């Protein structure tokens, strides 16, 4: 299969997935209790007014008509208005994307910075204390629930030691960088770092553990391959063999997993954002759920689906480019 065909197939699959998500969301909204018009207007509305809004919003139309109207809106990018705040859903989604991206990227960086060295050490010192330590860390990292870890970090590093704040995001990364550029002050950058450290550690721990194990197993596999033995036999320094050849070959599946995990993280790290009051999409989704603000919920879920599908397509394409065998599988 050519690269073009591969891409077209993947995009079509992605569109199908997004359509599925949109349809399920619409279905859930249809069967969920509560009258949308009453929810929009509040409890003080007269029956006459409720009826008028039902008419205006097309809520008296048959379900299939409402569904096609809804799809049509989605296609042209009209996600409607929040029932709670009367603001455009697009604006409410867009304003929360930076916080979510910051947290996802920071958590990924945490995973890369900790996991790869740890995995390398673990693989090159098999059955030594360093390996046992790394394996234990991985086991703990994968087993520890996010919410518990977050709360423990807050209790230890915020409440007891006073090193980090308990949550929130008073300044965004973009603004922090602008402050550096405009005023030459790193103040905002420090504030941003202060606030993102604990959420990033919390969110990144699971992925750190995952990547550590992946790095270790990948390297162990590679180290047993004939080219490594041959390289060593040629007299190449083991450090060169280890880091130039072995680690490089190990990185391909790791990059793939990292990419896919980034997609998951962009899906709104609901628990971490809630624990740290981090104003990303996950927290907004929870707020929307609590208020049964369906248009906002739909907007967020659709965005998450699009982000997830897009990242998957990009990662698959890269992997496919790097490893043409995939196209034929």
């Amino acid at each position, binding site marked *: 299969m050519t690269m073009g065909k591969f891409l077209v197939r993947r995009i079509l699959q992605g569109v199908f997935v997004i359509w599925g998500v949109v349809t399920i969301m619409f279905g859930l909204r249809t069967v969920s209790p*509560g009258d949308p018009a009453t929810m929009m207007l509040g409890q003080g509305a007269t029956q006459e007014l409720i009826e008028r809004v039902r008419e205006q919003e097309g809520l008296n139309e048959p379900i299939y008509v409402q569904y096609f109207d809804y799809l049509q809106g989605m296609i042209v990018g009209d996600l409607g208005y929040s029932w709670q705040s009367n603001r455009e859903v697009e604006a409410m989604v867009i304003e929360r994307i930076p916080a979510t991206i910051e947290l996802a990227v920071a958590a990924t960086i945490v995973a890369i910075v900790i996991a790869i060295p740890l995995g390398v050490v673990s693989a090159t010192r098999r059955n030594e204390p360093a390996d046992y330590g790394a394996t234990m860390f991985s086991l703990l990292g994968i087993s520890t629930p996010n919410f518990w870890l977050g709360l423990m970090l807050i209790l230890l590093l915020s409440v007891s030691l006073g090193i980090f704040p*308990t949550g929130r995001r008073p300044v965004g990364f973009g603004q922090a960088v602008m402050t550096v550029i405009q005023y030459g002050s790193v103040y905002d950058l420090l504030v941003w770092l202060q606030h993102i*450290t604990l959420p990033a550690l919390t969110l990144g721990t699971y992925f750190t553990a995952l990547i550590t194990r992946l790095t270790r197993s990948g390297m162990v596999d590679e180290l047993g391959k004939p080219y490594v033995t041959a390289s060593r036999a040629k007299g190449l320094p083991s450090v060169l063999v280890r880091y130039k050849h072995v680690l490089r070959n190990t990185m391909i599946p790791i990059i793939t997993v990292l990419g896919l995990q980034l997609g998951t993280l962009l899906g709104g790290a609901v628990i971490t954002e809630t624990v740290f009051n981090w104003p990303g999409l996950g927290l907004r989704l929870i707020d929307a759920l609590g208020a049964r603000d369906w248009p906002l919920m739909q907007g967020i879920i659709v965005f998450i689906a699009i982000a997830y599908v897009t990242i998957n397509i990009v990662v698959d394409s890269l992997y496919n480019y790097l490893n043409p065998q995939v196209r034929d599988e």
Partner: protein
Amino acid sequence: MQGVNNSLERRALLKRTGAATSIAGLAAIAGCLDDPSSGDDEIDELTITLSQFPDTIDPLDHITGDYFDVYDHIYEPLFDFEPGEGIFPRVVEDWEIQEGEGVTELSLRDDVVFHNGDDLTAEDVAWTINRTVDPEMGVVSDIGAYGLGSIEGAEALDDTTVAVGYGAAPGLAEFEFGNYARAMNMEWAIENHDAENGAISGADPEDFNGTGPYQVTDFTSGEEIVLERFDDYWGDEPPFETVIFNADGESSGRVNSLRTDETDLTINILPEDVGTVDDADDIEIRRVTSFRNIFCPMKNTVEPFDSQEFRQAMNYAVDNEAIVNSVLSGYGEARGQPVAPGINGFNDEIEPYEQDVGMAESLVEESGYGGVEIELTVPQGRYLNDAEVGETVADQIDQLENVSCEANLVEFGIVSDANSAGVDPDVIEIPFYLIGWGTITGDTDYGVQGFFTIPDNESRTFDDEELSDAILESQQIEDPDERRAQLEEVNQLAHEKAPFLFLHTQESIYGVREQISWEPREDETIYIWEMDA
């Protein structure tokens, strides 16, 4: 937020200097520097952490405490309301009942200006009241439906006089406009937000414009609002230069913010978190019995709740005192009527129902519903330990020999819908549920009319002519003492007819920096101008 001028973060940063740059390297430095804002220094900046951040910026589009906590500092009340005492002049200097006309004339101060520099006029006030009470105008407002329930409209007589018309006794109207009357800038609202045809919305500081002592200088929708003193405010200078409101849905999170100096005052602390605050330095718990009652309505148009004996049995089945002491750790008071002490018309002769299982079982048999299975629908996270309270209530009912009861935990929206679904038996899906109601006008009418009156009230939860008539009668009594006596009678009737399974009046629990001088109010409102530091 302009970080370079952000003194809040500066305070945090100074306290934990450089900690963010390196966990290991600079952690030792953190906390070694004194916080310049701690100790006995005057506080210029106050941070308040709510449990819910206002999700709409229209000051008339809500009737929830968290909104008033924020917006009352921007769109100030026209009157000062003192729980248990009545209303006092504020923006309205004086008011006069026009006998027999169903009208009270309000005289406004002539030196009040909006944050955008416009003068406040009677037309602004009249328009705001009309926009509140008229569901066809602007936004459908729960304040109009409930808070200003008897108010029919308002008209500007001249630049500083507003005539407010009502369809009930002047005393009731006074409780209502005394609590809920606000002033918006008519011209600004119409020109900038088409406010006669929809809700005000937006995400910028310029989208707010009131006459209050604070004006909005920074606003991050859904996260934080920063208020600063309004220099041209007509009244006394408020105590803090800057006030920041943010929110955290978790009680433990709010408490942690308080412990780490990230906030100075927080609300709705759960009983299980009280000890954490008590054990910490420089912060303390402050509490007050609120005007908010918790109860379980029983819609009497469906079985088995159509039987008064059965409804009374439900009340005898439950041990309110034990629930208050165990589930709420004492942060409440058992109650046997729809309103709390301090409310006009509260009947102090009425004792709460005492648990009597034998009596409950025999009443169930009398009702003819022995062996019935019922479900109690309970919200989670709305009221003080609501889920645990509801589960305990259901369990105690279930322990009756002749009734089975289960608790069904749901999100609050479902309970809210159930409460406003009316009493048509063909429509009722949830006839028995737990809910809370704060009678924040300070008058019994607000605690009963929405639930019990029949005419023009499709959202009622109880269908009883005698109770409805008693309330309607109270609304027309002009003499305050007579009216109070009638409201006491309404509460007595409600106790006997048992439209609710009466539970308790809950306490409001706040965590506050010791340095701040402030006493919580029964109506759950937080006013910065009542503080000092």
